């Protein structure tokens, strides 16, 4: 069996699993798995770019995904009336001053000779800058948050089409990645891991607490959909042409409208995935991709050949994070809401890593396959676990504490299973299902 036959078979198997969900459970959940699988595949491509191509250990995926979600709110929601005039410009000014403080401190650190004068100047700049920043920032923020706090209290967005928010999410994530990369790349691999882990937590903390930005834990609801590809159920159910088509498929209008909405998303996500996959493949095959792998395999040798390792690392770190940002924006669009409280590193960072490693790091198709497979398992392990627990506990008397506990805890089988899969793949097939060529 040649490689390509085997790889096609693997994809067919995963597709079959999703189809099986459709036949045995419901088509709604099957398409839900497909949609999140598509988004996960895009995240995997991003992580694979960083880890598989360049060997960068980024465990801050969650942060970039969340930034993508933030971009959706900032781009596509309508602006809050009066927010800009009452405090928006002030907040921007304060942020600019804050940035200027940091930049000037960095310049002083680089330009002045080391010594007490340098330390004192830096501390002085930072202290003065901080108080000026807080002095301007705080009143403006309270002004914004005072506007209709029950439904708004944030600065709102630009009211642009939501599809524009996807590249914007990528840009936002890329900007953050550039800042992080500038400081943290060039550190050892574990330090980069800790640094990105921390950054992701901080990004989430900012999104939870800065209510003026995207309402924090009060969440933003009702993010517009990318119509006309994705419609609204209520409108579809009134549309006679749509009803006729539903009739022809033999579906009742409610099911047909939810399916149609979800399939609309699938179509859009599929297009994005294909474009990104094509780009990633081209990058992999290009001289640039070969250079990246050369750097990954032997940094010293690559440097001796005149390659600027730090710059290339920064470049690929920014690119990969941007892709995660795009995926994050797509996910928030799919959810129709931004809920910063739900971002959890286990789900958004480490699960993506499991996807890449199980699929095959260094191989884009592997990453995509791993994403679909792991997402399918992530969703289905819960019912399987419940079934398993029911089988295990059939012998036990009803109402016994152990039986209840086992059945109630079945939901937590997920993390355990994911860890097990990761360890088994790492041990017995460390190059993944579709290894790098």
């Amino acid at each position: 069996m040649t490689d390509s036959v085997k790889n096609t078979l693997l994809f067919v198997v995963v597709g079959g699993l999703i189809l099986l969900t459709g036949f045995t459970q419901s088509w709604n959940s099957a398409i839900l798995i497909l949609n999140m699988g598509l988004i996960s595949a895009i995240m995997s491509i991003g992580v694979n770019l960083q880890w598989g191509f360049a060997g960068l250990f980024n465990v801050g995926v969650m942060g970039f995904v969340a930034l993508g979600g933030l971009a959706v709110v900032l781009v596509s929601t309508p602006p809050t009336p009066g927010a800009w005039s009452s405090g928006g410009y002030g907040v921007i000014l304060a942020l600019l001053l804050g940035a200027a403080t940091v930049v000037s401190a960095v310049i002083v650190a680089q330009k002045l000779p080391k010594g007490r004068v340098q330390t004192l100047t830096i501390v002085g700049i930072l202290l003065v800058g901080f108080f000026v920043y807080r002095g301007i920032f705080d009143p403006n923020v309270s002004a914004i948050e005072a506007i209709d706090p029950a439904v708004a209290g944030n600065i709102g967005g630009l009211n642009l089409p939501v599809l524009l928010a996807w590249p914007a999410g990528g840009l936002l994530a890329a900007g953050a990645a550039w800042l992080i990369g500038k400081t943290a790349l060039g550190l050892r691999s574990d330090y980069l891991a800790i640094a990105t882990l921390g950054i992701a937590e901080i990004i989430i903390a900012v999104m939870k607490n800065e209510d003026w930005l995207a309402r924090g834990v009060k969440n933003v609801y009702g993010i517009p959909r990318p119509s006309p590809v994705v419609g609204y159920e209520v409108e579809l159910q009134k549309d006679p042409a749509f009803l006729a088509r539903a009739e022809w498929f033999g579906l009742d209008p409610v099911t047909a409208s939810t399916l149609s909405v979800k399939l609309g998303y699938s179509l859009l996500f599929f297009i994005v995935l294909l474009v990104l996959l094509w780009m990633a493949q081209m990058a992999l095959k290009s001289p640039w991709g070969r250079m990246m792998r050369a750097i990954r395999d032997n940094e010293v040798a690559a440097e001796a050949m005149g390659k600027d390792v730090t710059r290339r690392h920064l470049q690929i770190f920014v690119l990969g994070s941007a892709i995660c940002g795009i995926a994050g924006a797509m996910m928030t669009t799919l959810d129709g809401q931004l809920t910063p409280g739900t971002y959890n590193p286990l789900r958004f960072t480490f699960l993506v890593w499991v996807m890449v490693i199980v699929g095959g790091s260094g191989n884009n198709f592997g990453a995509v396959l791993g994403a679909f497979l792991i997402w399918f398992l992530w969703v289905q392990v819960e019912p399987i676990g419940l079934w398993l627990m029911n089988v295990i506990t059939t012998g036990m008397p009803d109402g016994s504490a152990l039986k209840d506990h086992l059945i109630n805890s079945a939901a937590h089988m997920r993390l355990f299973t994911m860890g097990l899969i990761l360890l088994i793949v790492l041990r017995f097939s460390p190059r993944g299902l579709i290894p790098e060529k």
Partner: protein
Amino acid sequence: MDLLNALVALANFVIVPAVAYGSQLALGALGVTLIYGILRFSNFAHGDTMAFGAMIAVLVTWGLQAAGVSFGPLPTALLALPFAILGCIILVLVTDKLVYRFYREQKAKPVILVIVSMGVMFIMNGLVRFIIGPDDQRFSDGARFIVSAREFKAMTGLREGLAIKTSQGITVIVAVVAVVLLFWFLNKTRTGKSMRAYSDNEDLALLSGINPERVVMITWIIVAALATTAGVLYGLDKSFKPFVYFQLLLPIFASAIVGGLGNPLGAIAGGFIIAFSEVTITYAWKKVLTYLAPENLEPSGLVQFLSTDYKFAVSFAILLIVLLFKPTGLFKGKAV
């Protein structure tokens, strides 16, 4: 008088909590740093190891409470601690045998071991959630305070009270005992010396007949004991919640790296540095400053530099600054 009041307020809200938190971080960071020194990788599963040990302590405590056993004014959890340590030792030794040993024999790159520890983290996290659930669990009992704010006020006649929780007192005492034992072990015993030798120069240690598997086993045992102790103390002081332990990973790593990875003394110093900066930067200084400032010049705002939700940002900022200016940490660590 005002000066005294300010000092008491400072001690009550900053120094006492920071010392307790710092001791917990130091114990956690010692575990991370030992793993790094001997096994040479950053153990992402450390937070969940702490959670696992603490979980056993919670369960045993509940059992003891149900059996009517108590420890007088001290929390019953202290009686449960040895059992918890034992359980945690078994877990990490089994993990090492099933998982890590293979990669050690392969001489895998450290980054692979980090990814492996991610898998272990998932499994341990899943186990803890499976056994005790993801919710908050309370297991502290015994006297709540060593000195309560009201007693202190009555005793000294000051306007500010100073409260020291039993858990805070115990944390410091247990941490000191643990650290003294650890350093005695590392510096005075033959096994401890062989561990340090292995950490400093693996090849030389192997040449002089040190059994690496034994060193690794002892390291895991010590790490499990430290992690469980840290986990139980943190749980007593705050409360036991699995996800919080996972999140502790960041300040713990920050402590270990700031002090210099692989250096036990540095881990302790790092723990206190991180704890004190987190608490001072997220504390609202209004009260203390009101006592100190001359009349009419009292601060109007809270004088809080950052809201408490940003405490991660503090440990992270310190971590970055140290990494950028002194990549080996404040005390000379192994990592470059």
